[in-house]
C-alpha cells in the first residue's frame, strides 16, 4: 500500500488546463491535479463538474468531440502528452475506461476483450492467460463470452469495458464512473479489483466517481471538482472527515445517515447552472 507520507514519483501531471467545446462552451476553467505512481486518485464532483472532460483531456479523446485544451499542459512521466494520439498513449500504459460503457456492440464479449490487447505485441498464449485473468475477476463475463455485447445487460457491459482495459496491461487506468449502474455487490467487487490491481501489480488509477462514499474508501487522495474548478483536495481520509464533504457528498448529517424520505426541502445550489 502506498505510503502517503513518503514522496513518490508523479506519473501524471495536469497543469491548469482549460477546455472549450465547440469553440464556445468553456467547461474546464483551470484544473490542476497529479497522479502519483502506484496511487489511487479520485476525482469527485457533481454532474457536469467536468470529470469526464478532464479524463478525456488526458487521454486525448477530446478531439473527436469537438473539444480542445486551450490552456495549460498535461504531462505523463514528465513528457507532454498533448501531441500523442490516443493509441500512442495506450502504448505508454495509459488507458481510459469510458463513461457509459462503450462496448463494441456487434463484437462478442470475448472479441471485445481481445481488442483491449490490440496495442500489445503479445503472443496468443499470453493473451489467453490475460483473458483467463479477466474471467477470473468477472465470472459473469465468461458465461456471456459468446454473445454480442449489444445484447448484454448494463452491468455486464460495464464489466466488459473494465475487463477490456485490463487486457492492455496498463500502468495507469483512467476510470470514468465504474460504479454506475452496478449492483452494490458488484461495486464492492470492482473496487476490490481496483485495489487488488493497485496493490499487487502497482497499477495507478485516476477515477472519476459520483459514488463518493465508496470512492473515498478506496482512494488515497481525492480532488473535488465543481463547475470546472478544483475546489478542494486532500488525502482521502481527511476529505472524509471534512464537514462539507460529509454533508454534500456523503449524505451524512451530524446524526448519521439521513433518510432519503426526510429530505423535505429542495436545495437551491444549482452549481451546474452557474
Amino acid at each position, binding site marked *: 500500500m502506498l505510503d502517503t507520507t513518503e514522496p513518490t514519483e508523479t506519473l501524471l501531471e495536469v497543469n491548469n488546463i482549460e477546455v472549450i467545446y465547440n469553440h*464556445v462552451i468553456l467547461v474546464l476553467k483551470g484544473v490542476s491535479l497529479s497522479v502519483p505512481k502506484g496511487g489511487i486518485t479520485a476525482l469527485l464532483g457533481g454532474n457536469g463538474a467536468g470529470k469526464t472532460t478532464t479524463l478525456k483531456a488526458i487521454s486525448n479523446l477530446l478531439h473527436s468531440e469537438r473539444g480542445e485544451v486551450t490552456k495549460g499542459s498535461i504531462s505523463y512521466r514528465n513528457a507532454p502528452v498533448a501531441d500523442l494520439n490516443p493509441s500512442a498513449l495506450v502504448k505508454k500504459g495509459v488507458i481510459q475506461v469510458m463513461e457509459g460503457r462503450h462496448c463494441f456492440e456487434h463484437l462478442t464479449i470475448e472479441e471485445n476483450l481481445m481488442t483491449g490487447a490490440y496495442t500489445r505485441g503479445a503472443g496468443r498464449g499470453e493473451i489467453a492467460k490475460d483473458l483467463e485473468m479477466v474471467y477470473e475477476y468477472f465470472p459473469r463475463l465468461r458465461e456471456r463470452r459468446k454473445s454480442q455485447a449489444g445484447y448484454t445487460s448494463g452491468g455486464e457491459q460495464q464489466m466488459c469495458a473494465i475487463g477490456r482495459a485490463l487486457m492492455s496491461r496498463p500502468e495507469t487506468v483512467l476510470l470514468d464512473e465504474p460504479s454506475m449502474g452496478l449492483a452494490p455487490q458488484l461495486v464492492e467487487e470492482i473496487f476490490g479489483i481496483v485495489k487488488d490491481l493497485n496493490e499487487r501489480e502497482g497499477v495507478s488509477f485516476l477515477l472519476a466517481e459520483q459514488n463518493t462514499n465508496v470512492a473515498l474508501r478506496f482512494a488515497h487522495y481525492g480532488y473535488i471538482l465543481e463547475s470546472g474548478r478544483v475546489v478542494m483536495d486532500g488525502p482521502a481520509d481527511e476529505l472524509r472527515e471534512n464537514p462539507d464533504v460529509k454533508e454534500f457528498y456523503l449524505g451524512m448529517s451530524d446524526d448519521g445517515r439521513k433518510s432519503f424520505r426526510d429530505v423535505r426541502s429542495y436545495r437551491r445550489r444549482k452549481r451546474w447552472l452557474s
Partner: protein
Amino acid sequence: MFYREAGEFKTTYAKDQQTFPIALDRWGYFITLALAFLAVPFFINDYWANAVVLPFLIYVIAALGLNILTGYCGQVSLGTGGFMAVGAYASYKLMTAFPDLNIVFVILLSGGITALVGMLFGLPSLRIKGFYLAVATLAAQFFLVWLFNKVPWFYNYSASGQISAPERTLFGQAVTGANAVPAISYLFCLVFVVVLAWAARNLTRGANGRKWMAIRDMDIAAEIIGVNPLKTKLTAFGVSSFYIGVSGALLFAVYLGAAEVGEAFGINKSFLVLFMIIIGGLGSIFGSFAGAAFMVLMPVLLKNIMVGQFGFPTDIAAHFEFVIVGGLIVVFLIVEPHGLAMLWRIAKEKLRLWPFPH
C-alpha cells in the same frame, strides 16, 4: 455588442414560441421579404431569373421537402428525383387534360398526387432503416423514371417522350410557356416558396415536428413515448413528397418548360437536393435556403470566375468545378457538420459574446 438577445423578455408562451424571437432577426426577415416582393421584380432579367433565381426558389421547395423527411424525420431518401418527376408529369397531365384548370391548382394537385406516391414508397420505412432505407428509396427513383419513360400515356404519346409545358396564365399574365415574363414567373415561385416555407416552419415547430424529430433521434424511445412510428413516418413522407412534387411541377412548368424524365429527374437530382440540405443544415428551414443558394450559385459563380475572369478553357474549368465543389463539400462537412445554418448560429453566438469571449 451588435447582436443582442439579452434584454428581451417574453411574457407569454406564444411569444416565446415565435419563429424569430429576437427583434433584430425579425426585422431582417421582414426587410428581406419586402425586398424580395417589391424590389427584385423590377431588377430581374432573363439571365438572373433563369440561371439563378428561379432554380434557387424551386430548389428551396425541394430542399424544404427533403429536409422535412431527412432532416426532421431522419429518413434518408434518394428518391427525390423520382418524386419531382411525379410532380412534373402530374402537372403536365393536368395541364393538358384540363386546359382551364387554374395553374395554382395544377401545381397544388401535382403536389398532392406526389404526396400519395411518396406515402406508398414510404411504407417500407417502418421496417427498413438508415442506409438500407436510403438505398431502398432508389427503387422509387429508378422505377418512377422507368415508368414515365415507358408508358406513353404519361407524355401524351408524343414521338420523343419529351413533355413541354403549354402556356398558362394567372391574372392575365403568362406564368408558364415561352412568353412568361421573368418577373412574373419569379413572383409566382416566390409566393409558393414563402407560403410553403412558412407552413414548413409551423409544421416543424409544433407537435408534428416533435414527433418527426423524436423518430429521427431515437425511434424506439419515441414509440415507447407514444409516437406511432408508421403514421409519423408516413406523414413525413407525405408532406415531404408534397413539397417535392410542387417543386418538380414548378421546375418543369415554370423553369425548364420542357423535360425528359431521365435527364431532368435522374438520380443526380436526388443527390443535388440531398447536398443542399446537408450543406445548408439538416433539420433547419433556414438551412434549406442556404443550401439551395449555395448549390445553385456556386457552379455559376465558379464558372463565371474561371471562364469569365481567368479565361480557362471551358472543359478545364468544368473539371475544376467538380474538384472545387467536391472539395468544398468535404471542407464544409469538416468545418461544421451541421451545415451553414449551424455556422450562422455559431457566428451569432460569437457575435453575442463579442468582444468578451466567455
